[in-house]
């Protein structure tokens, strides 16, 4: 085979790409658009200004990484609510089982994926932090 053929072939590809849109993205100035099914940071859904979560413990039960801590309590109307709802994002594997298990559609996964932090404690997402994501 002609020793120049591969080089020319290679250069041709390079030349092609010179006129195409680049596949790389200038993150963080340029941000990706994630699919609606993307499994990012969790958020707790609200209804009537209250978290929908009824503290049924199905998510901590199903969680393979055991990263969800729930503590139920009784409110003034004798109803059950989550006094504590924490997700440890260091342990979370973003499998989405918690969303699947939830019987009251109280938890969803958002497109949020920038979860880096400086301190370990900051990876514990409390109920308040999870509720902020509307």
């Amino acid at each position: 085979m002609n020793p120049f053929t591969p080089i020319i072939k290679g250069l041709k590809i390079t030349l092609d790409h010179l006129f195409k849109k680049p596949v790389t993205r200038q993150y963080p100035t340029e941000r990706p658009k994630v699919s609606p099914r993307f499994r990012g940071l969790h958020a707790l859904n609200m209804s009537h200004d209250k978290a929908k979560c009824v503290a049924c413990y199905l998510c901590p039960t199903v969680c393979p990484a055991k990263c969800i801590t729930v503590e139920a309590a009784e409110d003034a109307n004798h109803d059950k609510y989550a006094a504590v709802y924490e997700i440890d994002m260091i342990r979370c594997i973003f499998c989405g089982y918690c969303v699947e298990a939830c019987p009251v559609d109280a938890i969803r996964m958002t497109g949020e994926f920038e979860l880096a932090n400086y301190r370990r404690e900051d990876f514990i997402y409390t109920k308040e932090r999870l509720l902020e994501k509307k």
Partner: protein
Amino acid sequence: MVNLTIDNRQVTAPRNATIYEAAKINGIHIPILCHDNKLKPFGACRMCLVEVEQMKGRQIPACTTPVTEGMIVTTSTPDIIKARKLVLELLLLNHPLDCPVCDKGGDCDLQNLSYDYKISSNRFHDQKFQHKIDYNNPLIERDMNRCILCGKCVRICDEIVSFGALTFIGRGIETKIGCEFDEALNCEFCGSCVSVCPVGALLARPFKFKARFWAMEKKRSICGYCGTGCNLTLGVKEGKVLTTVYDENQGFHRGQLCVRGRFGYQFINNEKRLKKPLIRKNGALVECGWDEALQLAASKIRNGSETAAIATPRLTNEEFFLFRKLMKGIGSENFDHAAGYAHKALTSGFARSLGSAASTAMVNDIQKSDMLLVIKTDSYETHPVIGFEINIAVKDKGVKLNIVSDKNGKLGKLPGARTFVHLPGSETLLINALCSSVIKQKLVSSTAASLPDFKEYAKGIEAFSPEKAASLCGISPEEINSLAADFASSKKAMILFPTGVAYPGHDSELATALANLAILAGKVEGEGCGLLCLPEKNNSQGAVDTGFYPTGKGLDALSVFDAIEDGRIKTLFLAGENPVVSYPDEARIKRALEKLDFLVLTTLFPTETAEYADLVLPASSYAEKEGTFTSAGGHVQYFAPVIPKAGDSRTDFEIISSLIKLTGGEAASNPSEIFAEIASTLDGYAGMTYENLGENGAFTAVKTRPALILPQTQAPALRKPEEFSLVTGALLYHNGTLSQFGEGPMHVSPESYAEISRKDASRLGIKENDTITLTSDSGSMQLAARVSLRIPEGVVFIPNHFSANPVNAIWSGKPVTPVALSR
């Protein structure tokens, strides 16, 4: 036995079994919602439908149909499955689908069956019920919207608890379960109804929303309150005991528990638990290390002759055995338990009359007997689960019940029960009169008549003829004669009586008198016969068996306090006891404790006694240690720790073991070694090991050698007409002072009170909850009055459990204390 075929399998079953039971015995599962092995068949749920070939293929309920020879049963055909699905669909029509917030989720029979039968949609539509949920009491929540009308709660409350708080109200689609006139539940809160509820209609409020069923470990243990020895299954999560779990196959009582057993577990994880040793420095208790604490304790107790020890009967057999070794090792004979008198019925009474310090009957004799003679209706309050056994015996097995008591009570309401209310403090006298009557009516058994001391005894007992005793005990001679005849002429008869710190009258003399009665009537031994002493605490019998009481020169518990005041005893080792509250005569106990050179206390909680201690060592509860308890009737049961120890606390076993080492002795390192030693030294425990005790435990062997001894009997002191007779006793909701640290018992019975009769109340113009002042020779106190129907005139009853305003301010420790009562 009957032979039958179930699902093409040849099986055998007892003649009186139902198809459901026959299937269960043979490992064939039939789905059911309304069955419990303690209750009579009811046939409410229609889930257990099976087909029987001989009945032309009709579907019949397995739980109410008895087996017959050659029956051919099919438990599952497409038709049956269709019928069961229909039943579930109809139940789910009204049952709310709130499983995520229902505490029963995961343990719910309806949920499990819906899952098994794949009921994912419903062909019918209807509105859910809108009943109001009963939140009126702190222990049991009743949500009748979830009820499936299986009737288990109604039946258990009637058949076993005999309280009858619940009933079916109305009929047809509007039927619901409720109390009389649809009021809020107000019962004795044993929680039996909660335990059997197949759905979440009845729930335990202390456990509400604490954990899901599947997230808890279920661990077996033995109840740490009274001497019944009930088995418990504790629900444990993250090292905490969260609830008791019902297991219908557990123990002689088949999972049945009382209010304190079911709802009183919270003391184990109470925040007030001591976590570190405390040492008194400059007048205040400060935390210190274990080494320092143990060294100090060892150096103080070394001088054995000036040292005494008093333990609570809640220690394990192993701990008592080791404790005894420690005391013997340091050269002290002064060790005792339970105020020194609460065990005298066994250690002195039974020991001399029957030859050994143990009951001759067992708890499971109750249902096999023909007649029960119960001393004090309080037996129900002190040992509620034994009370349930009595209920079943009387209502189901037709056992006759006679009660001799100084007040009326719940047991007396059982069908056919007779209560003989005598004057307070005249128990022994009355029993003597019964003995005398047995002899007079010539009902003496031949074995008793041939005893060498019979003649002498018969002569001595003449002084207590029914006619003479009648006026002193307040019961007519006719009644005494009829009761004596009833007892002696029954084929099988049994005597039950409680002992405890609150019952000083139940002493060695009463025990001897009762033993005499049993001996005369020939009811000492055999199935359904004998004497059953119901000791107050979980290991009272074990403390006696392991010999943790003084013999010979040793001082008993109350004499120890005298000796402290004389200066003969300088160091006191209290294991778990709280004498400032529970022993008679508070002032005297406090005086003695103040005079002590050194008081070391092992305890779970900073009690009133800890205020006098120089060294307080945090001990472990039964849930944190391993060992054996011996309960009423000599039932030895093994239990293992279910949770890690609280904080830095140590078991009494570890503490005593360290002290033995520090005082130059040689101690075993674990309880099983000591138990092996117990088994090899104590006759009754021969051959027992932790392994062969297993889940069911074993009974200690008792050798009897009956002897007729005339008890020393004093006629009750005559009170002045304006005075009241103070009697102390136990409440259903409490046991000792420990249950005060349990949330459940304190919800229903938070404080002490003085119970007086209606007649006295109206005479003195006292109304419920009025503050009344009670004065005795030893002091004075104020309490809220409770006007009650069960107390006879001239008697005032005060429970002995409460640290706040304890009864021992006025209570002398005599069976009856005369008190003046004013508004």
